[in-house]
């Protein structure tokens, strides 16, 4: 055929073009795959893209004076990446890994043991048989068809041994380790890919890392990633304020977009309330490495940013004195068992110290306490178990009594009743008005008693209101209260915010209850009687407030009626020290007359001079205004009353207000020594008590230079 004729058949030309293109492609493929195939294979095995998150270290938490309470420590987590394609090699490597971890006492993920125990080889007795059958059939996991579900752990184990190709050469124990690890891989198989990774152990020892790196050629695909983890100093005294952190739960994950399943999150206290500030910004990294996870080249990434640092208003010296004094006092009261008023059952308490000018909380303790560090050193299962016990048991240490405990105020409520009477325009009470205590008084068919008259047979006579506060004569306050009326009393209690949350920067604060008509009607659907007013006037009946509310109340008495919003975090700074947030003093002004203020101040001052707390404050160099309260719990037959004390000092220029509460503390005056110790620490007056001042808050100089990356083993 002539060329011209070929060109005339235009289809033939199209066919030639197509065939030539195809031949050209085949030649190119031959060159790439057959000639240079080995070369490309080697490049390929070093061109694995690994992408991973780098969890940002949490911000640091300091006390008022810059003592480090919560910091971070470097830890090493182990991950597995898919480096093997053969089961035999993988199994041998996993066994070696487990043996290293076991020999160094490191814990690792063993979720298989939620279902099958190693020794003896039985189903986990904590799981019901239905759960175990359900688990076997779960198509995300073992996916065993219904007819093949195993009824004994041994059968299932044999099945798993076969499934994961664990050869007969391995002993039972060895096979269990392998299967346990293989199960972790199965569970997370979507991430167990070339370039992917799954976490198998957290915070392993340096010995383990050393041994793994030595045996690197035998244990392929193990990646060590550094991470900063939370660590606490000696913080038991401030546990409730500080809180603790833990792994995010499925429930928390729902409410918090932007978190991953293995993130750490604040669980309580400041760690929870300021989570958004403390958390920081996670970084991520995309690197190119080999199949085993060794990094050869960084492709792209974003460095992690440490969370903001918090400085608390809490003074750890004061905090520690408050806690130690409270606990010492509780055990003292217990030892004074008399079987009449004191049943030796004092067991818990709280104390709050507040700066009356700013609202800063200088100390807030709740006893019994717990160790926040425990929660970061134990696995989730033990934490769950422990939390159950800690919340349910008597004394509930997880409970922050200062903001979550409601206590009947008893006589500490009397200043409010006095204010209500003095401020009522329709009444003519003033600083000079005398109120008669003649031991016993009948009103509306109800007999009111003076406690001293009933117990000891003497009366207070005609006394002023401030004298009433000093002596805490019940009869005087029954009279004042019934004169002023419950609506007036309730109005003033509300003015001091006693039925409101104070707005402190902690979660789970509760509001107090003021005894009034509204509450009785709404709660019990019952009418209010004058006897109710009588009971309310001495701080009984429904009245019950949290210590933090009482502290705000005491501070308002001290500072001329400023109802402060208390706060614990004073300042938030970023890593460079720039201020992100600075707390401001916020308050609502309560309007009351100068004369009323003077009466309350005089009355409360004489409490510590001649009144119910005078023994405690005998010869005390600073003028303290206080009020004791003994709150009946209604179970006085075999339980001691609660003891409460509120105070502020110095009287002339008040600086701090204190509230101390001891559950079953018998008398209000029994709790006053705690306040006295706090005052002594604050004002630097130590007489009978010697406190070790050199206690160690573990202060760590943080390494500023952190490695920006988290490389695999070198």
């Amino acid at each position: 055929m002539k060329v011209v004729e070929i060109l005339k058949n235009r289809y033939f030309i199209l066919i030639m073009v197509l065939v030539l293109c195809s031949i050209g492609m085949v030649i190119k493929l031959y060159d790439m795959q057959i000639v240079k195939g080995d070369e490309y294979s080697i490049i390929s095995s070093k061109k694995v893209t690994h992408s991973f998150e780098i969890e940002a270290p949490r911000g640091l938490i300091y006390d008022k004076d810059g003592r480090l309470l919560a910091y971070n420590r470097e830890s090493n987590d182990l991950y597995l990446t898919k480096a093997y394609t053969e089961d035999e090699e993988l199994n041998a490597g996993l066994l070696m890994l487990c043996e290293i971890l076991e020999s160094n006492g490191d814990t690792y993920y063993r979720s298989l043991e939620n279902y099958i125990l190693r020794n003896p080889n039985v189903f986990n007795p904590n799981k019901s048989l239905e759960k175990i059958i359900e688990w076997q059939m779960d198509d995300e996991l073992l996916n065993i068809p219904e007819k093949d579900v195993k009824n004994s752990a041994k059968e299932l184990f044999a099945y798993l041994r076969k499934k994961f190709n664990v050869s007969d050469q391995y002993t039972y124990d060895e096979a269990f380790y392998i299967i346990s690890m293989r199960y972790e891989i199965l569970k997370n198989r979507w991430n167990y890919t070339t370039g992917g990774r799954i976490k198998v152990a957290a915070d392993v020892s340096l010995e383990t890392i050393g041994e793994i790196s030595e045996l690197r050629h035998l244990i392929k695909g193990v990646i060590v990633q550094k991470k900063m983890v939370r660590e606490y100093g000696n913080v038991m005294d401030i546990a409730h304020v500080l809180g603790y952190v833990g792994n995010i739960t499925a429930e928390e994950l729902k409410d918090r977009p932007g978190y991953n399943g293995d993130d750490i999150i604040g669980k309580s206290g400041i760690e929870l309330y300021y989570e958004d500030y403390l958390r920081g910004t996670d970084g991520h990294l995309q690197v190119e490495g080999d199949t085993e996870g060794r990094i050869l080249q960084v492709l792209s990434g974003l460095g992690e940013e440490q969370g903001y640092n918090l400085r608390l208003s809490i003074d750890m010296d004061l905090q520690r004195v408050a806690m130690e004094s409270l606990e010492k006092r509780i055990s003292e009261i217990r030892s004074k068992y008399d079987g009449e008023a004191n049943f030796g059952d004092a067991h818990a308490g709280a104390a709050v110290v507040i700066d009356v000018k700013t609202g800063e909380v200088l100390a807030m303790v709740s006893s019994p306490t717990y160790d926040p560090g425990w929660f970061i050193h134990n696995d989730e299962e033990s934490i769950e178990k422990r939390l159950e016990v800690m919340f349910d048991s008597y004394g509930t240490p997880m409970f922050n009594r200062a903001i979550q405990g409601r206590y009947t105020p008893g006589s500490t409520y009397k200043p409010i009743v006095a204010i209500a009477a003095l401020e009522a325009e329709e009444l003519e009470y003033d600083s000079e008005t005398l109120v008669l205590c003649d031991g016993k008084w009948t009103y509306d068919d109800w007999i009111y008693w003076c406690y001293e008259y009933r117990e000891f047979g003497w009366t207070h006579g005609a006394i002023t209101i401030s004298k009433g506060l000093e002596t805490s004569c019940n009869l005087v306050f029954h009279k004042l209260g019934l004169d002023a009326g419950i609506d007036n009393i309730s109005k003033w209690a509300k003015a001091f915010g006693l039925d409101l949350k104070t707005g402190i920067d902690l979660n789970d604060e509760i509001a107090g209850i003021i005894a009034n008509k509204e509450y009785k009607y709404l709660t019990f659907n019952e009418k209010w009687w004058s006897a109710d007013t009588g009971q309310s006037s001495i701080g009984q009946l429904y009245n019950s407030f949290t210590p933090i509310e009482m502290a705000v109340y005491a501070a308002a008495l001290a500072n001329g009626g400023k109802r402060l919003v208390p706060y614990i975090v004073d300042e938030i700074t970023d890593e460079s020290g720039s201020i992100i947030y600075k707390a401001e003093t916020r308050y609502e002004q309560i309007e009351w007359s100068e004369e009323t203020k003077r009466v309350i101040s005089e009355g409360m001052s004489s409490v510590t001079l001649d009144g119910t707390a005078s023994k405690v404050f005998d010869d005390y160099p600073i003028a303290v205004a206080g009020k004791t309260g003994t709150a009946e719990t209604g179970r006085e037959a075999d339980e001691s009353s609660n003891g409460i004390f509120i105070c502020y000092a110095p009287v002339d220029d008040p600086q701090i207000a204190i509230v101390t509460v001891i559950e079953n503390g018998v008398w209000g005056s029994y709790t006053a020594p705690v306040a006295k110790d706090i005052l002594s620490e604050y004002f630097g007056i130590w007489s009978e008590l010697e406190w070790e001042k050199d206690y160690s808050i573990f202060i760590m100089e943080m390494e500023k230079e952190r490695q920006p990356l988290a490389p695999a083993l070198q």
Partner: protein
Amino acid sequence: MFNKISNVSILAKFDFVLFILVGTITALGFVVLRSATASMNTGASIIRTQIISIILGAVICIVLALLDYQYFKYLGYIFYGLTLLLLIYVLFFGYGREVEGIGSNSWISISGFMFQPSEPAKIAYMMTVPALLVKLKDDFRISTLVLSILAAVIPIVLILLQSDLGTGTVFIVGLLAVVFIYGIKYRYLLIGGVFAVGAAALAWFYLLDDYQINRIKALINPMQDVEGIAYQTAKARIAIGSGKFSGSGLFEGLQSQQNGAIPVKESDFIYSVIGEELGFLGAVAVILLMTLILLWCLRIAMKTQDKYGAFMVTGLTSMLAFHFIENVGMNIGLLPVTGIPLPFISAGGSAMLMYFAAIGIIMSVSASSRSS
């Protein structure tokens, strides 16, 4: 002619060879797609879309194969008009540039279901332009010539305005093939070629977007910038090369089973997955199958006595051929990267339907030539 067709039984007219060849490559493609998407979050939904597309495509293919293609001469104009409207619509309201891996605003999104109007436009184009050319050949008039040129050029301009260079080239190649078979003189082709080179130079400096220029530059020196597009094509080539003779096996490809290694591995770069996991054997098998399909189609065009059928088959086959050659070519590093998928294998709804529709039309032509 119409009557003759109806006299022959359906089974005898049906082009089983073509149907089985296409079925084979589709099945192979589906298996590879399963492997390519195994590591992807969106894998399951991609597979679901693909299954639906294949079934729908097969139905469309069979229906078209059983229809008399002469109707397309007239139906084509309506279809052409509709697709032209859609192409104008995407020009203003199109979607895709902001989506990674698409690069051009050539998509329409109707309540979450996305499709590219340029896919049905390919079919409409190849129904209409050949019809006009047949008219021109039978009765040469300037008015018909002008109409033909307008009909041939407008869709190409619209698509190029979307910055979709790859698809534009598909149309140009299809048009050239039809014009070539039409019998245009070689000297006109030469003159056209000179103009084309000039236009290409102009485009390079004035019309092409940066990303398009980068893709062409990347072809020339793929190892130069590791971060960008060249890095991706390098990954694709590494994957193919490492497949060696028999490949790593499905679901075992080191690069194929990573996320973020081979770019758009479920679609544009699925051939790299084939190369890595099925090796030289699989990669050549795909070339062989595609070449056989295309040769078979050209054979149909050659055999038919009807000019309209011949032009239409040639045009559609050339479009498919360009898809195939460009896609494999960019995977193995011979041609610049464009968003042209591999027919019957790459994931993608509207493209899959277009391939099957094209095969259906070609089968219809085949059927009529068998009956005559």
